[in-house]
């Protein structure tokens, strides 16, 4: 493509190049013409000299013949004859002998004298003074007029073109008197041998003419012309190169125009005519065709170039138009293609839209189902809460009934909280905002602990709950243990829920290792109702249960399996299910986790953390929350930890408290509050600190907005930490301990006094039991998490079996049984006395 402009540029200059070429050709032609003229002149001079030289050659030849005849005349034989004749001898008896000798001499002369193998003399005759032939072979009459004058120098030469003879007569004088003559007759052909002639096509030819009637050419050709041609050639001027168009009437063949030179053969009446074809003499430059070509060709070339140029321009214009047309066609083709693509996209979009519509319809239907289900799930406990609250408010009732009402309210609230947590978890996972909190944990212990939570429920349904693991308990991994418990709890809870008899097997299998990574599979197999194959694929979809009747029969939101799948994928694993209706099901999930160095079941770090979690605090905390219940729960919990609690209903009050009281060590700030929200209150507090140069007061966000952007927004607003409602007491204490520090330290010798708790802090355990019992008795859901921590701490001890049983009670929200068993455990292990001692102390 880059060469195309160059071609156009060259094409544009082609006419000018042709003009220059024409000029150059004309100059060359002019020079060639000059050179040709000069060459012509030189050639004319040369051929003229050559012709003259050739004529001189002929003259020399003829002179030679003339001299030869003179020599014959002077021969002694002839003289002897005339001597003897002068003596009076008769011819018959004497002179005949001389004549015989002369004949002999003449015969020898004729035989010996040759030119190119051809005898020079046809006849040599001795005539007497009367013209009578004395020797033999003489023609009947002398070929030329005799007698001669007798002058010794006289030589009579006659060219008889008709008889083709050259006749030379030389007088014979004896004793000063003319006594006769020697006459020689030669064939003109002898002379013609001396003429140049080109037999091939007669391009070059020499002729001899006597100017009258005949012409002689090269002897090989023996060409003779007509009289007309001879006269025409003889009339040419001497010693000049003349042009003759042709000799049409003559016998001389000619090829068009020729140059003719007539040179005189001196001493003879002959002329040498040299005919040279013009093309041979002038060469190619004289060719009219060449000259015309030299003139016409540049003009033709110029014309052709101009025509070519114009044609080229037209072609280029046509090419441009074609290109434009092609571009237009291509553009329209592209548009057509785009239209086609768009049409296909539209079709695809239509199909997608239809699919999405279907999906939306399905989702809408699922959500409708879900909403109906959620409505049912929410309304059921809400009905319990509201009903029990109305009963408590409207009627005086015995203490036992009142406690039942409160328990029902508590249970219904926990049910609602579980439902809410599931929804939140699913929302977090789907939004990709769920972050795993990796801690070191033993998957075998974790599996065992989870299974124990459901052992009581299984036992109540006379179902065997079996735990199998191919991984030792000392093997620790780095994983989010809370989420693992959540996932296992979902699977085991479902199994317990949907199994009426038989057994449930909970298994842990290390299916692969990759370096320091291990791929673990947790599975729960039951002998429950099973699931149809066509429903297996949608089991892990949110808001989906195998059968709506299942939900009605067994309850549940259908979110659990979906959360399990999301979390398993988040942990680098997968989920699956195999099931046969009526035979049972096997649900499993796998994870990838980093393997840690093998440890004892409970590490020092965990113990330290446990100690930190259950430490006592000192100081004043401002709790800002518009919800009285929330403020009351926090107030009760923190007061138990030795903290002084100041309450504020909104942000405005919180700012006022902070400004009026300088001993506030920490602020729990609800984000969503009337009059002034937590963000603005925090900003004003920070502003007040800055203006009054007060010490930094930690502000902990206390919100139901659990997403990370909510956390970040709180931190950006000047808050220092983040707590999610409903508050987990352990998490609350951890955060408070983080900002306020511990008030005291549990004695390290506790283990020595209570060998059954070799690995646990007895004081801490007693503390945790003391705080748990009221929570359980109040049917607070926090009790479940609190007890979980206690259960972990007691794992591997002699109390483990009972703690698992309490945990199962809590799972099924049997708070009373749990409280009863926990008190029995505390009594058995002596923790109650320890608490009493501490309280006395």
């Amino acid at each position: 493509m880059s060469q195309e402009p160059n071609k156009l540029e060259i094409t544009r200059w082609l006419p000018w190049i042709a003009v220059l070429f024409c000029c150059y050709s004309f100059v060359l032609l002019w020079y060639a013409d000059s050179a040709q003229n000069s060459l012509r002149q030189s050639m004319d001079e040369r051929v003229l000299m050559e012709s003259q030289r050739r004529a001189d050659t002929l003259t020399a030849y003829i002179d030679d013949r003339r001299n030869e005849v003179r020599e014959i005349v002077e021969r002694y034989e002839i003289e002897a004859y005339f001597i003897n004749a002068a003596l009076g001898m008769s011819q018959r008896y004497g002179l005949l002998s001389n004549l015989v000798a002369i004949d002999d001499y003449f015969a020898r002369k004729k035989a010996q004298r040759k030119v190119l193998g051809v005898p020079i003399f046809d006849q040599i005759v001795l005539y007497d003074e009367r013209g009578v032939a004395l020797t033999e072979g003489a023609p009947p009459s002398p070929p030329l007029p005799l007698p001669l004058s007798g002058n010794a120098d006289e030589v009579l030469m006659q060219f008889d073109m008709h008889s083709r003879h050259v006749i030379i007569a030389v007088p014979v004088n004896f004793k000063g008197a003319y006594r006769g003559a020697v006459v020689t007759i030669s064939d003109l052909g002898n002379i013609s041998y001396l003429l140049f002639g080109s037999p091939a096509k007669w391009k070059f030819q020499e002729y001899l003419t006597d100017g009258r009637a005949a012409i002689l050419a090269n002897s090989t050709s023996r060409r003779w012309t007509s009289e007309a041609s001879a006269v025409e050639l003889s009339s040419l001027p001497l010693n000049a190169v003349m042009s003759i168009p042709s000799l049409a009437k003559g016998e001389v063949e000619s090829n068009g125009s020729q140059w003719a030179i007539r040179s005189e053969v001196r001493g003879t009446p002959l002329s040498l005519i040299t005919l040279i074809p013009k093309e041979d003499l002038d060469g190619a430059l004289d060719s009219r065709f060449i000259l015309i070509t030299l003139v016409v060709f540049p003009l033709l070339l110029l014309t052709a170039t101009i025509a070519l140029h114009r044609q080229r321009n037209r072609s280029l214009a046509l090419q441009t138009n074609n290109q434009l047309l092609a571009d237009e066609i291509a553009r329209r083709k592209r548009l057509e293609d785009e239209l086609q693509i768009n049409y296909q996209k539209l079709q695809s979009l239509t199909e997608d839209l239809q699919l999405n519509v279907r999906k939306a319809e399905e989702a809408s239907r699922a959500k409708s189902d879900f909403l109906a289900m959620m409505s049912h799930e929410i309304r059921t406990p809400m009905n319990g809460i509201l009903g029990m609250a109305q009963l408590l408010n409207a009627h005086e009732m015995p203490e036992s009934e009142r406690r039942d009402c409160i328990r029902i309210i508590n249970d219904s609230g926990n049910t609602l909280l579980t439902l809410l947590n599931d929804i939140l978890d699913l929302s977090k996972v789907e939004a990709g905002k769920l972050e795993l909190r990796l801690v070191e944990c033993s998957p075998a212990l974790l599996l065992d602990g989870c299974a124990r939570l459901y052992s009581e429920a299984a036992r109540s349904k006379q179902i065997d709950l079996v735990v199998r693991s191919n991984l030792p308990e000392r093997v620790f991994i780095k994983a989010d243990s809370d989420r693992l418990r959540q996932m296992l709890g979902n699977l085991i809870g479902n199994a317990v829920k949907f199994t009426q008899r038989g057994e449930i097997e909970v298994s842990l299998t290390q299916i692969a290792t990759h370096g320091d990574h291990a791929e673990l599979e947790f599975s729960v197999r039951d002998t429950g109702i099973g699931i149809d194959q066509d429903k297996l694929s949608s089991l892990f979809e949110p808001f989906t249960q195998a059968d709506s009747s299942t939900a009605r029969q067994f309850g549940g939101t259908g979110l659990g399996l979906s959360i399990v799948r999301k979390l398993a994928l988040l942990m680098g694993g997968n989920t699956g299910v195999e099931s046969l209706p009526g035979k049972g099901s096997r649900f499993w999930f796998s994870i990838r986790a980093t393997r840690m160095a093998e440890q004892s079941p409970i590490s020092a770090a965990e113990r330290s953390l446990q100690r930190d979690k259950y430490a006592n605090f000192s100081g004043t905390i401002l709790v800002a929350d518009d919800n009285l219940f929330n403020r009351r729960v926090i107030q009760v919990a923190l007061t138990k930890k030795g903290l002084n609690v100041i309450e504020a209903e909104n942000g405005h009050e919180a700012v006022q408290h902070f400004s009026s009281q300088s001993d506030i060590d920490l602020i729990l700030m609800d984000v969503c509050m009337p009059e002034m929200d937590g963000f603005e209150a925090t900003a004003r507090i920070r502003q007040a600190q800055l203006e009054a140069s007060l010490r930094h007061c930690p502000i902990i966000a206390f919100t139901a907005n659990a997403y990370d952007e909510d956390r970040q927004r709180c931190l950006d607003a000047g808050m220092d930490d983040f707590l999610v409602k409903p508050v987990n007491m352990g998490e609350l204490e951890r955060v408070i301990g983080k900002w306020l520090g511990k008030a005291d330290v549990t004695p390290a010798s506790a283990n020595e006094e209570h060998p059954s708790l070799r690995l646990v802090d007895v004081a801490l355990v007693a503390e945790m039991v003391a705080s748990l019992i009221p929570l359980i008795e109040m049917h607070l859901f926090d009790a479940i998490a609190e007890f979980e921590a206690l259960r972990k701490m007691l794992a591997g001890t002699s109390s483990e079996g009972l703690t698992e049983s309490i945990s199962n009670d809590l799972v099924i929200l049997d708070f009373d049984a749990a409280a009863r068993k926990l008190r029995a455990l505390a009594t058995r292990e002596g923790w109650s006395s320890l608490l009493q001692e501490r309280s006395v102390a």
Partner: protein
Amino acid sequence: MNLILKLALCLGLWSGNLASAADLKEIQARGELRHLGIPYANFVTGSGDGFDVELVQGFAKHIGVRYSLVVSDFYNVIRDLLGKDPVRKGDEVSLTGNYPVKGDMIATGFTVLPWREAVLLYSKPTFPSQVLLVARHDSKLQPIKESKSLAQDIASTKALIGKQSLLVMERTCLDPSNYGLRASGIDLKAYNRSSNLSEMVPALINKEAELTLLDVPDAIIDLKKWAGKIKVIGPISEYQDLAAAFPKDAPELRKEFNTYLQQIKADGTYDRLVDKYYPGIRRYFPDFFSRRN
């Protein structure tokens, strides 16, 4: 008639003394043909070639024998052929003596003369000739005016001799006896210093005699050679024939020679020899050369 009888008689008487001549068969048996030749004109030249030399060489080849030239002279050539010396006495010819036979045939421009025919066998003529009367250029005698009659011209010529001295060579073609010159009062002077006819003209020029005889073959040469020194007065003899001569007892050899001669005349060999050694002679003797047989 008497002459014939006399000759026959002589031959009969002397036949017993004749040496045996070789005929064709003997020559072929011998394998060599001995050619008796006399250096004379261009018949047998001094350089060993000549008209007759080539003629006999061709004949030897014809009969299939080697050729050998035996040089002789006019005085002894018959003796060399026949082994006898011919002696003329008037019209009689006798053969005398015994001499070695040196050759088998004579071919040397040998004129056919009657007395020779008495002792020799002649072939058919091989060449023409004539005897002329020659004088020095300053001689008072003027050449005759030729007439239409040869005999008249001979008579006119002889009449001019008168009493003047005439140089002749006996036993040759210039022997005056051959032409009736002995009894006419002519002062005959025989040239006998040699038998070479070519020496006759120089002797004439040397004024050893006023006149001499000269045959045409020599005249052709001498009139050019001694042009202005001598002049031909006229003819002395009729036209003569020159022929090859054989012994009488060699008829087969002569016959074969005649066959050979006829053959070379027919095939042109003869003409080439004539033109080689005597160009122009045909003009002199047109009648002879017009005869092919």
